[in-house]
């Protein structure tokens, strides 16, 4: 039980905290959260179609690149869906979905959390359920921590990354900022492609720290965005 609970808390602790203490206070964000989870599911379904192309399993870099590209397309599609909904509300009901100068920030955090939660549920759900029971599993690439804990930590880092990517993405799309979009793509490709090295010997010595660095970079960029929004005149 303890391993299962511990690994579940690693992955879902931040998600539940952000959801409970932040999203729940603004009901519209919960709906954005659900929609974002659905868009992530769509992107995963489409990516999985490429998995069945003969031989592509032996080209993990290509498969990961395709997956990242599709996910970014759906991130943009989610942004468009949110924009369309917001404009529909303003045009027809003469109300806004969210108010205040942090409206887009709130929406991007909620959307990022939706992406992150669906990512965590799909990728980590099965692994977590396998962690219950007697015995555990260690892999040569990371012999100091169990496979389940390693997987949970990686998923946690991707949860945090997804939130910052969505903040950067939404700001980039709103402002049509090429720099932001490129930085988003670079961060996402870097994070996903580095995980391909996970099956190499002693990979957790460089994969996990790299991912953690990318989380810090994403957090710094997101903080900069927040500062820009704070300083923006209404």
């Amino acid at each position, binding site marked *: 039980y303890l391993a299962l609970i511990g690994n579940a808390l690693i992955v879902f602790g931040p998600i539940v905290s952000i959801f409970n203490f932040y999203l729940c206070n*603004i009901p519209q964000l919960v709906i954005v959260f659900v929609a974002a989870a659905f868009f992530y599911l769509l992107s*995963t*379904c489409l990516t999985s179609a490429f998995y069945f192309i003969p031989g592509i399993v032996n080209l*993990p870099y290509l498969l*990961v690149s395709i997956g990242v590209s599709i996910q970014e397309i759906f991130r943009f599609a989610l942004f468009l869906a949110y924009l369309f909904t917001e404009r529909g509300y303003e045009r027809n009901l003469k*109300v806004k979905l969210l108010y205040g100068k942090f409206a887009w920030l709130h929406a991007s955090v909620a959307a990022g959390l939706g992406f992150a939660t669906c990512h965590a*549920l799909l990728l980590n759900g099965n692994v977590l359920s396998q962690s219950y029971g007697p015995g555990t599993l260690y892999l040569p*690439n990371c012999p100091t921590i169990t496979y389940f804990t390693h*997987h949970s930590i990686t998923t946690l880092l991707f949860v945090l990354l997804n939130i910052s990517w969505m903040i950067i993405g939404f700001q980039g799309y709103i402002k049509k900022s090429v720099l932001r979009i490129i930085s988003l793509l670079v961060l996402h490709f870097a994070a996903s492609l580095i995980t391909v090295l996970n099956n190499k010997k002693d990979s957790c010595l460089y994969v996990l720290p790299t991912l953690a660095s990318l989380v810090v970079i994403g957090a710094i960029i997101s903080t900069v965005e927040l500062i820009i929004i704070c300083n923006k005149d209404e």
Partner: protein
Amino acid sequence: MSNQEEERLLNGGDSQINSDLQDNAIKEEDSDSEAVETINYDPTLDSDNDESEEGITTRYSENIISLLKPVSIAMIIVIWAVHTLSPILNSSGVPVSSAVMVYTESESDSGWLKLGGALLNALIVVAMVCVITVILVLLFVYNCYKIIYGWLITSSAVLLFTMGWLWLEFTLRAYSLTIDYFSYFFLLYNFTILGVVSIFWQAPTIFTQAYLIVVSCMTGWWLTRLPEWTTWAILAAVAIYDVIAVLTPKGPLKLLVETAEKRKVPIPGLIYESKKFKLGLGDFVFYSVLVGRASMFDSVTMFACFVCILTGLCLTLFCLGIFKKALPALPISIALGLIFYFVTRFGVTPYITNNSIQQINV
């Protein structure tokens, strides 16, 4: 337009199937039908000039969340029941047969036979639901309230008692807990009576809502015991029936709702009320069945169906606000759930499994 509360109705056709334990065989009896899923929305709040614009959006979103929460809770409870209680029931060796199914699935049957048999079973179930709904409508039109409520109360009491018995016994077995017979039946008796009182008479709202969720969970859990192909066929068939029953001019549910509107009386049936919306228990049941059945395969399919159902429900509620007329609650959610169940089962799960083995994150 009357000054009274305008009802925007979200209807769905449902059947609630009670089960009785007889000897060593479990037979499913169709004893009553759910009426409708209704969503009531109070427009006077919209026309209130003192209400801020932000308040309108927040309030409508809160109303949507007030339905997403109980649906999520019901689905989680059924998932728990499927993984905790079903193994114990299966190991007890009690055979499952149904009084309404003509085809019993067997592992050795071909795919086409299973498909044909499942469709036949689904057709029978939908026909049964249709007949029961028509009977309910006729009783309502001719003001036979005593028969309607007597029927609903009896079936609810039987459901709470028998299923409560099963749930309590299997939960005790699952967690190796013990209880004496006197306390067991004392709890069960009070659970049943409190449930009937909460649903049909007076009780704090939280009790009424909790019991409605429990009733839907028990029914949903029971329906997950149907054979796999039959379950999927029934879900699809009931969703299609829902559209016909609600949107066609002479659909039984449309007639029921219109009659209730004309008479300005509540629609008879088990309906979950939350803030400004009401949702019939049939929706809870079939959502739970879909997710419960998906969870039997894999956690990936389970989470995918969970997300799809919540998304479908959100879309339905948005459509309700746009079209401003009665809409069926099942089709969008069930359609998304079914599509994504099969896509994740045959497509996403192998991909995710490969990524998990390779420790790749995208």
